[in-house]
C-alpha cells in the first residue's frame, strides 16, 4: 500500500513538473510579459506563413477544432472541440459535419454563426470577393469539394476524397475562424476574433498588447488579464532582458542550443526546454541544370552529406538524423533509427558513403585534379549561411570546388523558382506534423512551395494514397515508402531538423510546449501567474 501511495505521489509530482500545473487552484489576473524576436508582417494569421504571426495572435482566435493545448504531442488523437462542440464523419468518410457552439460572440459583440465558418473557407479557397492578399495555405484545402451551411449552428465540409488528417489541418494555429463582417484588410491590422484575448494594439518595433476577453465562451478562462509582447530585434538585448527578470518568458524557441547554457547560468531559476522547431535544413539541387541533371551526380552529393558533423557543429549532438518527416521521439511519423539508416545516403558508415560518392564522381570524370565548380546559393541569414558553409566543405571531399552565393532574402524564392541556381541550401518549416502538410506542400508537382519543382508520378500517387488511408499503421508504412523514394530521387535531401529552447520563470504556470509543432500551442488560455 505504502509503495502504491509513493508511486502515486511520484506520478503527481512528475506530472506537475512536466505540465507546470500545481495542486493549488490557478490564480486569476496579471500580465504575461514576453518578447518577440521581430515584427509580425501583419496580424492576419491566414495571410502569413511565419510563426511570428501565429505566436502572438493565436490567442485572439478560435478554430473549429484544436490540438489539445495541455497535451505535448499533436496528433489526430489530441484534437479537441473548439468552436465546434462536436463533429461526425459520414459513412463514406467524405463529409465531416460540425455542430457549432451557441452563444459565442466576436470581440466586437456580433454573434458567431456558421456564416463565419463559410466566409473563412471562402477566403481560404480563394472564392471570396474581397479576398486575402496572400493565401499561403490554399494548397492545404485542395481536397475540399464544398462547404455547406445547415442553419446558423451547423457546417458540413464535403471532401473530394476521404482524408483522415483533414481535422489536423483544422486544428492548427494556422486555421482560425475569421468573421464575415471584418474585411481581410482590417484583419491585417486590427484582428477581431472569438478567442480568450482581445487585440488591443500592435506598434511596430515596440509592442503587441492583448487583453482578457471577459465574454469568452469558456467559463473561467483565460486566467491572465493581459498579454504584453515586446518586440526586441537584437537577440543579445532580449536575452539580457529575460535574465534580468524583465520578462516572464522568452519567445518560443528563441534560445539556441549554445545560448541555453548561458541563460541557465545567468538565470538559474529559469526553466528551459529544448525541443524541435519543426524546421528542417535541406539541400536543393537543380535537376534541370547541367551537370546536375545527371542522377548519378545528385546521388554522389547526397552520399557526401555528413549529417553527424552538421549535428556536432550546429546542434552539439542533439539534432539526430531524420528523413523529411519530423524524427522520433517527438515526431508522429518519424522512422526508427534502423529504417532511417537504411535510406540511401544515411548509412552509419560515412567513410563507405564517401568512398562510393568519390567513385561515382571519378566515373563522371572528376577527381583531385579536375574539380567541379559550383555555387551553393542560400539566403543571407545566419541560420542559412552556417549550414551552407559546412556543406561546401563537405562537398570538397568529393571534388566539388564550392563557393557560397549569398542571396538577398527578397529575391531568394524568385531565384530558386526560375531555376537560376545549381545547388541551394534551404530551410523548410512544418506547421502540422502530418504528411498531408509536408509532402503536399513541398513534394507535389503543382505546389507553389515546391521550389525545386521535384515531380514524380510515383510520389504523387503515394501521397494521394496515404492521404486517403484511414488505418494509421498502413498510412505510416506508405509514408516511409515515400521517404525512401524521396531519398532515392535526391528530391530535397534532408540534413537535419532544428531544435531550440524556450525558457520561463517558475511563476509562469500552465505552460505546455507542443513537442512536434511550434505553430499550434500559443492559445495561452490555461496559462496563469503564481505571483
Amino acid at each position, binding site marked *: 500500500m505504502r509503495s502504491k501511495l509513493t508511486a502515486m505521489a511520484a506520478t503527481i509530482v512528475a506530472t506537475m513538473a512536466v505540465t507546470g500545473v500545481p495542486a493549488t487552484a490557478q490564480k486569476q489576473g496579471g500580465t504575461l510579459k514576453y518578447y518577440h524576436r521581430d*515584427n509580425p*508582417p*501583419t496580424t492576419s494569421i491566414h*495571410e*502569413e*506563413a*511565419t510563426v511570428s504571426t501565429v505566436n502572438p495572435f493565436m490567442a485572439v482566435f478560435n478554430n473549429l477544432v484544436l490540438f489539445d493545448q495541455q497535451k505535448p504531442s499533436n496528433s489526430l488523437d489530441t484534437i479537441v472541440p473548439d468552436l465546434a462542440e462536436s463533429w461526425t464523419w459520414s459513412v463514406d468518410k467524405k463529409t465531416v459535419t460540425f455542430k457549432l457552439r451557441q452563444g459565442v460572440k466576436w470581440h466586437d459583440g456580433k454573434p458567431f454563426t456558421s456564416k463565419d465558418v463559410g466566409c473563412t473557407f471562402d477566403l481560404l479557397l480563394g472564392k471570396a470577393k474581397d479576398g486575402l*492578399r*496572400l*493565401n*499561403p495555405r490554399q494548397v492545404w484545402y485542395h481536397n475540399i469539394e464544398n462547404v455547406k451551411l445547415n442553419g446558423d449552428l451547423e457546417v458540413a465540409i464535403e471532401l473530394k476524397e476521404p482524408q483522415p488528417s483533414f481535422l489536423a489541418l483544422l486544428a492548427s494555429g494556422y486555421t482560425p475562424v475569421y468573421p464575415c463582417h471584418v474585411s481581410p*484588410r482590417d484583419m*491585417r*491590422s486590427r484582428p477581431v476574433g472569438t478567442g480568450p484575448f482581445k487585440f488591443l494594439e500592435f*506598434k*511596430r*518595433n*515596440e*509592442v503587441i498588447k492583448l487583453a482578457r476577453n471577459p465574454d469568452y465562451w469558456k467559463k473561467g478562462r483565460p486566467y491572465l488579464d493581459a498579454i504584453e509582447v*515586446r518586440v*526586441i*530585434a*537584437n537577440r*543579445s*538585448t*532580449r536575452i*539580457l*532582458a529575460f*535574465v*534580468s527578470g*524583465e520578462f516572464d518568458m522568452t519567445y518560443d524557441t528563441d534560445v539556441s542550443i549554445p545560448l541555453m547554457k548561458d541563460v541557465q547560468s*545567468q538565470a538559474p531559476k529559469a526553466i528551459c526546454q529544448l525541443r524541435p522547431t519543426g524546421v528542417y535544413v535541406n539541400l536543393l539541387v537543380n535537376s534541370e541544370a547541367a551537370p546536375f541533371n545527371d542522377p548519378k551526380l545528385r546521388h554522389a552529393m547526397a552520399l557526401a552529406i555528413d549529417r553527424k558533423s552538421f549535428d556536432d557543429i550546429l546542434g552539439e549532438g542533439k539534432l539526430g538524423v531524420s528523413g523529411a518527416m519530423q524524427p522520433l521521439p517527438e515526431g508522429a511519423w518519424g522512422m526508427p533509427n534502423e529504417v532511417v539508416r537504411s535510406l540511401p545516403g544515411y548509412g552509419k558508415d560515412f567513410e563507405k558513403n564517401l568512398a562510393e560518392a568519390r567513385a561515382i564522381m571519378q566515373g563522371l570524370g572528376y577527381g583531385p585534379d579536375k574539380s567541379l565548380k559550383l555555387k551553393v546559393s542560400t539566403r543571407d541569414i545566419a541560420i542559412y549561411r552556417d549550414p551552407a558553409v559546412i556543406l561546401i566543405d563537405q562537398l570538397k571531399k568529393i571534388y566539388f570546388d564550392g563557393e557560397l552565393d549569398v542571396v*538577398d*532574402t*527578397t*529575391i*531568394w*524564392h*524568385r531565384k530558386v*523558382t526560375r531555376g537560376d541556381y545549381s545547388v541551394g541550401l534551404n530551410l523548410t*518549416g512544418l506547421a502540422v506534423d502530418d504528411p498531408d502538410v509536408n509532402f503536399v506542400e513541398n513534394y507535389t508537382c503543382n505546389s*507553389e*512551395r515546391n521550389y525545386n519543382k521535384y515531380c514524380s508520378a510515383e510520389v504523387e500517387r503515394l501521397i494521394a494514397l496515404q492521404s486517403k488511408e484511414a488505418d494509421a499503421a498502413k498510412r505510416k508504412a506508405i509514408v516511409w515508402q515515400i521517404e525512401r523514394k524521396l531519398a532515392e530521387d535526391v528530391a530535397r535531401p534532408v540534413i537535419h531538423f532544428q531544435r531550440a529552447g524556450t525558457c520561463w520563470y517558475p511563476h509562469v504556470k500552465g505552460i505546455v510546449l507542443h513537442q512536434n509543432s511550434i505553430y499550434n500551442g500559443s492559445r495561452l488560455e490555461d496559462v496563469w501567474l503564481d505571483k
Partner: protein
Amino acid sequence: MGTYLIRRLLMMILTLFGISVIIFVLLRVVPGNIADILFDAAGMVNSAEKQKLESELGLDKPIAIQYVTWISGLARGDLGYTYVSEQPALEEILPRIPVTAKLAGLALFFAIIFGVPLGVVSAVRQNTVLDYVLRVVSLSGLSLPSFWLGLLILMAFVHYLGWIPIYTNKPDRLWDELVLLSIPAAAVGFRASALIMRLTRSSMLEVLRQDYIRTARAKGASRVSVNYDHALRNAVLPIITIIGIEAAFLVGGLIVTETVFNIPGVARFLVEAIRWRDYPVVQSLVMFIAVVVVTVNFLVDMAYAVLDPRIRYDN
C-alpha cells in the same frame, strides 16, 4: 546677407528635389518590391496574385507617374499609406521622431560638453600625462564599435548594476525618459565626443601658436582668458562644422544604437522599412533626414558669421 539667404534657400530646395529623385529611383533599382517580399515571407510564388498586389499598390504604373503622385502628396502633407501596416505613413513616422530627436540631442549634448573642454585641456597640456590619457580615451572612442560598446554598457547597467531597465516602455515623465536615454546617448556621444575632442585639440594647438596669443599672454591676460576667450574663439569654426556634421549624422545614423538598446526611433524603423521595400515610409523618412541635414548645414553656415564677424557672405 539677404541675397545670400535667398540663394541658400533656393539651393536647399534644389538639393531636396535632387535627393527626392535619387531616393525614388534608387529604391526602385534595388531588386524586389513589397509584393516580392510578402510572397517570399509566405514562402510561395504566385505570379498572378503578385501582379494583382502590385496593381493595388500602384507599383505597375510608370515610374514618372509614381513620382509625381508621391511628390504632390508630400507637398500636401500626405505621405501615403505604408505598404506593410497599411496605416497612414505620417501616423507611423511622427511618434518616432521625438524619440530619435531626444536621443540624438542628448548624445550631441554629451559630445559637446565632454569633447570641447577636454580638447582644450589636451591642447593646453600638450605632451603631458593628462594629454596622453585623453588622447588614448579619444582614440578608444573612435575605434570601439558602437554595438559592442552598447552591449557592454547594457550588461553593466541592466544586468550587473540593475540601474536601468531595457527600454521597453516609454516612461510617462520626460525626466525619466531622458534618464533612460542617457545611457545609450552616452554610448553614441562617446564616439562623437572623441571626434570633437581631437579636432578641438588640433585646432587649438594651431591657434595657440599664433602671435596674438603670445601678445595676449604678454599683456597679462589670465590663462583662462587666453585659452577660452582668445584661442577657443578662433579655433571654434572647424569644431562647429564637425558638430553640424555629427548632428546631421545622429538623426539618421543611430541604427545600431536603437537596435541594441531597443529604442523605437526613426533609424530602426527606416531600416525595417528598407527591408520591406516600404517605399512611402523610406522616401518620407529619407526626405525628413535630408531636410534636417540641409537645415543643420544652413545653420552652421549662419553660425560662422555670428562667431567670426570678419565673415560677410555678401562680399
